[in-house]
């Protein structure tokens, strides 16, 4: 069974530039999560989708971050414009349903300089 795929693995951008991350969840998984993990900290939930609807986006900085999940499958997370404090690993995860095990991708390490 293929796991959660994320791309790119690494990205370096200058502040005020824009960046996009892509996530392909495990086939059939209805729930998709985007987390931000700053070095040495636990993952912080940015947005959670159930199929193509948003369950929670209360911690998503909506003035600069946006996310969408097209047709309830792939998802894209965008940052525009990026700030230095956005440097982190962005983790995508998916689960079959809301209360079942979440499977994580390898993450995208973003460095904003």
């Amino acid at each position, binding site marked *: 069974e293929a796991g959660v795929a994320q791309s790119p693995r690494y990205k370096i951008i200058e502040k005020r530039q824009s960046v996009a991350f892509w996530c392909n969840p495990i086939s059939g998984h209805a729930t998709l999560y985007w*987390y931000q993990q700053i070095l040495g900290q*636990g993952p912080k939930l940015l947005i959670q989708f159930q199929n193509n609807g948003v369950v*929670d986006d209360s911690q998503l900085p909506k003035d600069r971050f946006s996310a969408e999940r097209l047709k309830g499958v792939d998802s894209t997370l965008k940052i525009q414009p990026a700030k230095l404090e956005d440097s982190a690993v962005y983790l995508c995860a998916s689960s079959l349903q809301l209360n079942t095990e979440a499977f994580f*991708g*390898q993450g995208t390490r973003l460095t904003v300089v």
Partner: protein
Amino acid sequence: AQTVTQSQPEMSVQEAETVTLSCTYDTSENNYYLFWYKQPPSRQMILVIRQEAYKQQNATENRFSVNFQKAAKSFSLKISDSQLGDTAMYFCAFYGGGSEKLVFGKGTKLTVNP
């Protein structure tokens, strides 16, 4: 809002010994699930063990077991016969049936020494 607290930023244990990682949580919900995830260095997060709040019996997965104290809102992870491959960050996570969010603690860095 649900919160998950891991009070031990770092721990170490000798190979073959037993270690317990602590986790407490705060919630007003009755229907929830608790998880321990492992994140090895530079590798992806994987599930270690899962506990449903309605189950009184503590979950066990091979060398990993939990001590779930619902009244105290405590959910500790015990690793028996520690192995070098257990070296990782361990995160406690909470999923609430009402909030429908999966929330993580800040993690405990576990080092297993030879």
